[in-house]
């Protein structure tokens, strides 16, 4: 048995320098061949994935949540080990067994969750990834940052603490760090998901600048329009496989959309039933924010049965505090919250839940689920004390499993087993789980905070569908979202919140998008 091993070691591996799908006149920077990856929990994330990246190219990898995009780039950047497959850089076969090795080969990745240390300064964070020993000379590091950032026209203060920087600048620090390490292939994992529209423009400008300097950029996204805007070529992934690689110029939105989601066509019917009796009455509510400032300054509204009431506003105008006061997570200073004429002001979350208020929180990782517990357990978090899940304090695992399996199928949660821990689910699937729990426990009021944030088209559509279903059953929904499109699509009535006050109310028939947008920014209508 020694011979084949010996043979393998000695034989020259056939080095691919060109590919069939390679655009003419360009040079191959990275070639990934036949990568397979199955996670310990049995989920197959990559099946025979091959992809080629050219020098000076922006290459988008497009796909839904769970299509295997992140797994693929984690393998390329050395964060994950593939079960099989080969990687070539500049025509040379390489073994990438750690992120450090990847960087030394010129590949760097900006993760969806930033790898910066919040209490450190920009310079300290960048110094961490440079091969330094002995005395720490931050001045040298700052000099390096300055020279790299000036070459690209990126402004950054090397002495700023990361925790004080807005998200867009944090991302810039991540990219700068990779450039300081002489990375030639940059991987950006869903880079726009955390950015405001203006920051996205800045990012795209930066990507074009990098491209002109000969860097290759791999950008992962689930947004078709984004891939069309920024990329030269786009590779579509679905179910862990590469569906196709296309030249961006030669394709269009509908072709890409149909490749991303097989046979997808938006089919949501928005029905506007006549609203019923008042369910939730909020009167002159005043709530303090984290820093003791008055965040909600006398808000009053009525939510009726069978109605979706949208609250539009730029994030940070008191929406968070308003929602927290209604769900019992924050004390209200004054005012009343009535549910079916029952005073729930400053009552415990448990009382509020028992009175039929469901809540889809914005921060699903921390407020929506307990990450280390299983899918089934998370699904019964709000009613595990009631039959059939508990009988005289004894929990019934079979009942939990039955209802969990049902919800997993009904909401399309990708979980191989009802008892695997939530940790192993993707972000989109975690949101599906939260939605499944909140929408299935028979609540009469739903407070939904950014319910489709970070979800792909299909998953968002699913959530919207479910909300419409509830509405037709007479549930009142308070929809708080920074996404004006979502608010306009679903709401029967729209409130505009600015600096803790309701500054405008629109019914579906008289709503004017431009007027709402102006009010959101504090201009008078």
């Amino acid at each position, binding site marked *: 048995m020694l011979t084949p091993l010996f043979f393998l070691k000695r034989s020259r591996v056939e080095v691919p320098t060109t590919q069939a799908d390679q655009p003419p006149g360009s040079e191959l920077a990275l070639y990934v061949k036949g990568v397979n990856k199955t996670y310990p929990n049995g989920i197959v994330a990559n099946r025979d994935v091959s992809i080629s990246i050219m020098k000076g190219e922006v290459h988008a990898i497009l796909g839904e949540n769970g299509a295997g995009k992140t797994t693929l780039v984690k393998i390329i950047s050395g964060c994950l080990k593939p079960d099989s497959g080969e990687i070539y850089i500049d025509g040379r076969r390489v073994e990438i067994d750690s992120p*450090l090795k990847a960087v030394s080969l010129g590949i760097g990745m900006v993760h969806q969750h930033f*790898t910066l*240390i*919040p209490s450190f300064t920009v310079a300290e964070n960048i110094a*961490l990834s440079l091969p330094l020993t002995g*005395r*720490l000379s931050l001045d040298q590091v700052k000099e390096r940052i300055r020279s790299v950032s000036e070459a690209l026209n990126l402004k950054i203060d090397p002495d700023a603490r990361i925790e004080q920087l807005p998200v867009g600048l944090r991302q810039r620090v991540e990219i700068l760090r990779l450039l300081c390490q002489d990375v030639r292939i940059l991987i950006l994992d869903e880079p726009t998901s955390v950015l405001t529209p203006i920051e996205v423009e800045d990012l795209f400008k930066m990507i074009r600048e990098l491209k002109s300097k000969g860097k290759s950029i791999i950008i992962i996204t689930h947004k078709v329009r984004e891939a069309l805007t920024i990329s030269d070529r786009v590779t579509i992934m679905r179910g862990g496989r590469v569906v196709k690689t296309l030249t961006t110029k030669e394709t269009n939105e509908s072709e890409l959309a149909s490749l991303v989601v097989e046979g997808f066509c938006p089919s949501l019917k928005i029905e506007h039933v006549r609203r019923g009796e008042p369910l939730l009455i909020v009167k002159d509510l005043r709530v303090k924010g984290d820093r003791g400032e008055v965040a909600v300054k006398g808000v009053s509204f009525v939510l009726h049965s069978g109605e979706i009431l949208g609250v539009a506003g730029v994030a940070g105008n008191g929406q968070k505090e308003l929602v927290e006061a209604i769900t019992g997570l924050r004390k209200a200073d004054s005012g009343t919250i009535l549910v079916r004429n029952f005073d729930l002001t400053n009552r415990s979350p448990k009382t509020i839940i028992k009175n039929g208020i469901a809540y889809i929180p914005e921060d699903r990782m921390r407020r929506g689920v307990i990450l280390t517990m299983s899918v089934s357990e998370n699904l019964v978090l709000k009613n595990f004390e009631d039959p059939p899940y508990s009988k005289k304090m004894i929990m019934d695992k079979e009942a939990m499993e039955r209802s969990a399996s049902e919800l997993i199928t009904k909401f399309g949660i990708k979980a191989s087993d009802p008892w695997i821990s939530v940790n192993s689910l993707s972000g989109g699937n975690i949101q599906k789980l939260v939605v499944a729990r909140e929408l299935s426990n028979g609540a009469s009021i739903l407070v939904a905070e950014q319910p489709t944030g970070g979800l792909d088209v299909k998953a968002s559509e699913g959530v919207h569908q479910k909300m419409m279903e509830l509405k037709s059953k007479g549930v009142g929904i308070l929809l708080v979202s920074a996404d004006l499109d979502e608010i306009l699509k679903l709401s029967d009535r729209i409130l505009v919140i600015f600096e803790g006050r309701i500054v405008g109310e629109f019914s579906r028939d008289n709503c004017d998008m431009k007027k709402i947008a102006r009010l959101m920014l504090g201009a008078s209508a």
Partner: protein
Amino acid sequence: MIEMEWALIIGFIAAGIRTSAPLMLASLGETIVERGGILNLGIEGAMLISAFTGFMGAFLSGNLWIGLLMAILGGILTVITFGILVVRINLDQVVSGLAINLLAAGLCLYFFRLAFSQGAFPYLSELIGPYPIPLLSQIPVIGEVLFNQTIFVYVGIVSVPITYYLIFKTSYGLKLRSVGEDPLVASYLGIEVSKIRYTALILEGIFVGMAGGLLCLSMFNVFDTRIVAARGFVAVSIVILGRWNPVGAFAGSLLFGFTEALSLWIGTFLIGPESASISQLLSLLPYLVTLIALLIGGRRVRGPAALGSPFSKE
């Protein structure tokens, strides 16, 4: 008469600094590991082991310096044992620390009994005494207070700026702090988390070894399983009080050292039938001050973000 009072006050200050020495050394060591995200409650047991190995080394060899060497070795070994539990096997840090303390108490008692027959009262005939620094010790007042001390005090004081430099001005320190803030991120950046943590633990072992050793070699000349008397735990609270900064740890150690010296000092003036019980009560003073100081200074402080949480890459 006035001179008498002066001498008393100078003597009190010198004693305060002397009693702070073990806390100073221990809290500097603990500051280093906590900056790297490791909460070592086993420091109490590590001090006990090093007191024991130090005592045995000195007793058997008849040489106090060999005793000190053994104390340092004992300290390193115990802290590394703790390190294997929490870094390699990834056990809970608090539980592992407490386990080390129990193990240390048991081991010391067992080997002490094994070495000496029941009723024997082994003691060291001499101690590592003050080493007056030539010239400097001649300066009035300051000379007596600062430069007529034991080597442990000198090492403790000199280690403050050194430790500060290590943590804040070297690339090792930057890596150490990053590991304490977010080990996962640090590992993504190619920092070898366990290597950094083991290095910190060895440094702590040296400090703790000296702290434990000095109890038997410089402070008392006998060994007893109660000799550490919660100084290790006090050192852990000093680290919090000092906000994970060596300068803060130094100041905190002085506070407790002086309180301890004060309680002893007052005790010597007590005469009469109740004096015994009152001095017992007085010896509680340092612990009471720990509690009060933590209540005042330990609130709203932010330590290393990953302090005490286990870390594994998967």
